[in-house]
């Protein structure tokens, strides 16, 4: 457990709420090795410090949800995991961010390889204006895979993993833009999987989807963690509770609390976390 808040913690009734045993939480998370380790990560947009010295360790093959009110820095932190912030002028990242023990902000890092290993799924489905097949095959082709058989197998595998194969297997050459929103989002997940990433970042992947499509994507997230490590930003508290193993609560750029999701949603240590997830503020 990591609780970095320095603020006092009066409870709703005005008394300090005792925290759960940090040892118990640590023991549970120790069962999986840490894949993503952030140490004192800060992200600046010019002079503005959007993420303030965040330290946390995300276990491999787990789903980690990032929650917090708008502007709290959760998406900025998410994008720093595959250095997407580098594309923003005047954006600067300090601290150390390790994936599989390698500092991704080290000079000379292979950015193409990093983005291949750390896939990103956006809020709004953004398929390329190409066929369903070509959307998934796009990344592997860029990587130099030209064998038709190899591409066919890869496309089928990724579409199956994304739980959309049965819906599209008979129209792989049809335009991806003709799919429904939920299908498009699952196709985008299949496209992200095609480059064989270790980590899948998802920035509010269900916010533009209806409840049925949301449910399919959530089931998919839970299934995908067997092979990938997933970090998801969401404004939907129930979604965070349903799909994630660990939850990080951000507020005003700071990581306020990071713990097992069950603990965060039943017995958070920090008053600010309690207030946010119970809807008292934010």
């Amino acid at each position, binding site marked *: 457990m990591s609780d970095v808040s320095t603020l006092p913690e009066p*409870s*709703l*009734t005005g008394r300090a*709420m*005792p925290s*759960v045993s940090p040892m118990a939480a640590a023991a549970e998370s120790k069962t999986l090795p840490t894949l993503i380790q952030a140490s004192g990560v800060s992200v600046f947009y010019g002079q503005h410090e959007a993420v303030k010295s965040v330290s946390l360790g995300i276990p491999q093959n787990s789903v980690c949800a990032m929650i917090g009110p708008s502007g709290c820095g959760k998406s900025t932190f998410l994008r720093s995991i595959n250095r997407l912030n580098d594309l923003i002028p005047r954006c600067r990242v300090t601290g150390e961010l390790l994936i599989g023990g390698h500092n991704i902000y080290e000079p000379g890092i292979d950015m193409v390889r990093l983005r291949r290993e750390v896939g990103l799924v956006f809020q709004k489905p953004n398929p390329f204006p190409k066929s369903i097949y070509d959307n998934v095959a796009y990344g592997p082709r860029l990587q130099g895979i030209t064998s038709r058989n190899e591409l066919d197998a890869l496309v089928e595998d990724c579409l199956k993993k994304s739980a959309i194969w049965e819906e599209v297997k008979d129209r792989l050459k049809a335009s991806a833009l003709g799919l429904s929103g939920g299908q498009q989002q699952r196709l985008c997940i299949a496209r992200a999987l095609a480059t064989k990433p270790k980590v899948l970042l998802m920035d509010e992947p269900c916010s533009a989807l209806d409840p049925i499509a949301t449910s399919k994507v959530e089931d998919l997230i839970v299934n995908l963690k067997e092979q990938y490590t997933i970090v998801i930003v969401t404004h939907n*508290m*129930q979604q965070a*509770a349903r799909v994630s193993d660990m939850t990080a609560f951000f507020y005003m750029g700071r990581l306020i609390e990071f713990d097992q999701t069950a603990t*965060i*949603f*039943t*017995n*958070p240590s920090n008053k600010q*976390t*309690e207030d946010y*997830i*119970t*809807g*008292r503020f934010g």
Partner: protein
Amino acid sequence: MSRTFIEQLAELKDKLARMSAMVQQLVEKAVESVYTADGVLARATIASDGRINDEEVRIEQQAIGLLALHQPAASDLRLITTVIKINNDLERIADCAVNVAQRVIMLEHIGDYEVPADLKLMGNTVISMLRDTVKAFNLIDESIARHVLRSDDVVDALYHQIVQDMLVLMESEREHAQTNLANIMIGKNLERIADHCTNIAEDVIYIYTGRIVRHLHAV
């Protein structure tokens, strides 16, 4: 969370507080009817149980409604799930009080009923325990709840003593067997009330700390 939810949650807690006051009154009346061998009071006690049953259903419906409509988390979730459990324990306490009152009615025709000293002590201890239990919930006070847990040992010891004493008396005074059996049954129901109080006290500790202390003996 909406203002409505916060208000409804406060209303739910108030309703349970009112229910616990009703149950407390019922138990006090039942025990008083034993002390005074008052059949009229015992019948009035039994008649009051219907209101408690109705209230139990209303509280449960409201709690389930809040869970379904608002998907609460953290302390709100702990409070609502615990209200459902405490509500059930309170209703069972009322049932035990009714059982006690029914024994008093059975004793009416015997006459000259005298309460054994240990049974009176047990009744007073259970009433005191129930008062503390209600107070612990109303104030969400962990220390009072832990005091309730400790009191249960006293009630258990008194109950075992009463059973032993009554068995001895049943051997020597066969003509009073019915009275002695009634004393055991009254003791048994008081002991059950104390058990429900400990359940509620454990739930209060859960609301306050988030830790489930049930089945842990160190209090």
